[in-house]
């Protein structure tokens, strides 16, 4: 207890004495961790959009009405046996309608004027290997018409639609956005590490007389260093806390404002912000550990 009290008193004294440097370190950590969290939230948002738009389905085989159970079973089995296919799920007309209504929630006119009957049932396919897509139209003896529409000879099959393109484009956008923000975040995390390390070093320099006396009277290396390590950790964690709060406020005041205006796009929820909070804290911990190791290296000798 006494030791813990000592560590925290020394840490608090250090941060107070080193105020401006500590402030700089905390702000850099805050910006870095904020961008890091932002990158994660952007990735999450885009994957929400992709899921909404495509249901992660890469190929849809639309079925002609009425769907005969024996043909359905046969088709499902044949598609499932194709090496390129990962999974095949059946979506009946009611489910298709439900999904369409969800999609057009913001536009009641469409929902009211289009009867559920127009939405075809479909087999929704995810691929193991998207480059092997051709296996599917081939298996159903489909041909691509001049208008780009794929029509099929197979009984019961209306049309095959390829969503790979959209998916590819969406995930390309995700990648660029997420990687861009992550790259900036990584650079900022690097600067935060250097700044915190520097703060610790300046703190040690400011207290070199105390450290000299501590050594002289037989304080162990760890007794001398731990207050500085805690100081780095506190700075990183305060930055992380501010970043989490800011992301949360941004979600409440910016994203939630959008929610009433753009109804057709699914938006991140509080739980998504909550889910990335531990990652931000872990990143802060990493920054503190690296900064501590660099910062106190010069004082490793007794």
């Amino acid at each position, binding site marked *: 207890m*006494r030791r813990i009290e000592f560590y925290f008193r020394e840490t608090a004294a250090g941060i107070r004495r080193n105020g401006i440097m500590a402030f700089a370190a905390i702000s850099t950590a805050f910006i870095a961790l904020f961008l890091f969290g932002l990158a994660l939230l952007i990735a999450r948002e885009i994957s929400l959009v992709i899921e909404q738009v495509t249901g992660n389905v890469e190929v849809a085989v639309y079925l002609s009405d009425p769907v005969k159970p024996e043909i359905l079973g046969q088709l499902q089995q044949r598609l499932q046996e194709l090496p390129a296919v990962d999974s095949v799920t059946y979506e009946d007309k009611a489910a298709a309608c439900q999904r369409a209504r969800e999609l057009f929630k913001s536009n009641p006119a469409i929902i009211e004027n289009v009867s559920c009957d127009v939405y075809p049932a479909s087999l929704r396919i995810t691929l193991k290997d998207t480059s092997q897509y051709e296996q599917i139209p081939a298996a159903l003896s489909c041909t691509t018409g001049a208008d780009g529409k794929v029509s099929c000879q197979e009984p019961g099959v209306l049309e095959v639609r390829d969503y790979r393109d959209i998916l590819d484009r969406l995930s390309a956008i995700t990648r660029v956005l997420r990687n861009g923000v992550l790259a900036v975040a990584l650079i900022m995390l690097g600067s935060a590490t250097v700044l915190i390390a520097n703060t610790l070093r300046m703190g040690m320099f400011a207290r070199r007389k105390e450290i000299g006396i501590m050594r*002289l*009277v*037989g*304080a*162990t*290396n760890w007794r001398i260093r731990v207050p500085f390590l805690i100081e780095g950790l506190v700075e990183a964690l305060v930055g992380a806390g501010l970043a989490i709060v800011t992301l949360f406020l941004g979600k409440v005041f910016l994203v939630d404002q959008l929610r009433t205006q753009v109804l057709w796009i699914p938006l991140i929820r509080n739980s998504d912000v909550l889910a990335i909070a531990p990652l931000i804290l872990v990143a802060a911990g990493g920054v503190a550990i690296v900064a501590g190791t660099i910062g106190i290296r010069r004082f490793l000798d*007794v």
Partner: protein
Amino acid sequence: MISLQNVTKVYRNGVTALEDVSIEIEKGEFVFVVGPSGSGKSTTLRLLLREEEPTSGQVYVAGKNVVRLSTLGGIPKLRRNIGCVFQDFKLLQDKTVFENVSFALEVIGKPKHVIDGRVPEILDYVGLGEKLNNYPDELSGGEQQRVSIARACVNRPLVLLADEPTGNLDPNTSVDIMRLLDKVNKIGTTVVMATHDQAIVDAMRKRVIELDRGKLIRDQSRGVYS
């Protein structure tokens, strides 16, 4: 208590600070180490504290070979058995007299009840029982040196090393400090004091070890400065 065996110390810049020096000091002795600047006095003290390692030879303090001590636990433990007093006092200006002394116990993890018991006791012993809450800049040089002696002795060390403890003090105050060191010696602490102060050495009539350019040139019990 202290044993230097054929110790040579050559610094990295090529300066030979000590050359084949052997010294034996028994428990409870009071020893002056004298000699001009650069004769190796401070190096001797730094070797005992294991702030430096000898280039060759062995150094024993309290039965331990200090060269073999580990930085992790061994060296701190050695230093807990050695008190240090310097010419410039090395007090922390933003701490009170009490805090300066208690700091030495706190940083080696002594519990609060030990600190609260020992610090006023040792400050009383050095004659500063009334000045617990003063800051160093409110004290005279002699009083500051008393604080530093209190800090050096509060953990009851076996050895007290003093490097020119009277170097910044006027003659009368120096005599008071020497009385105090003698008092510390009388309760069983081995005292090793490096000094230039001829008057003090001559007055005390203690064992004198004289170094000159790194060589031991005299070791005399009840000696004088030169």
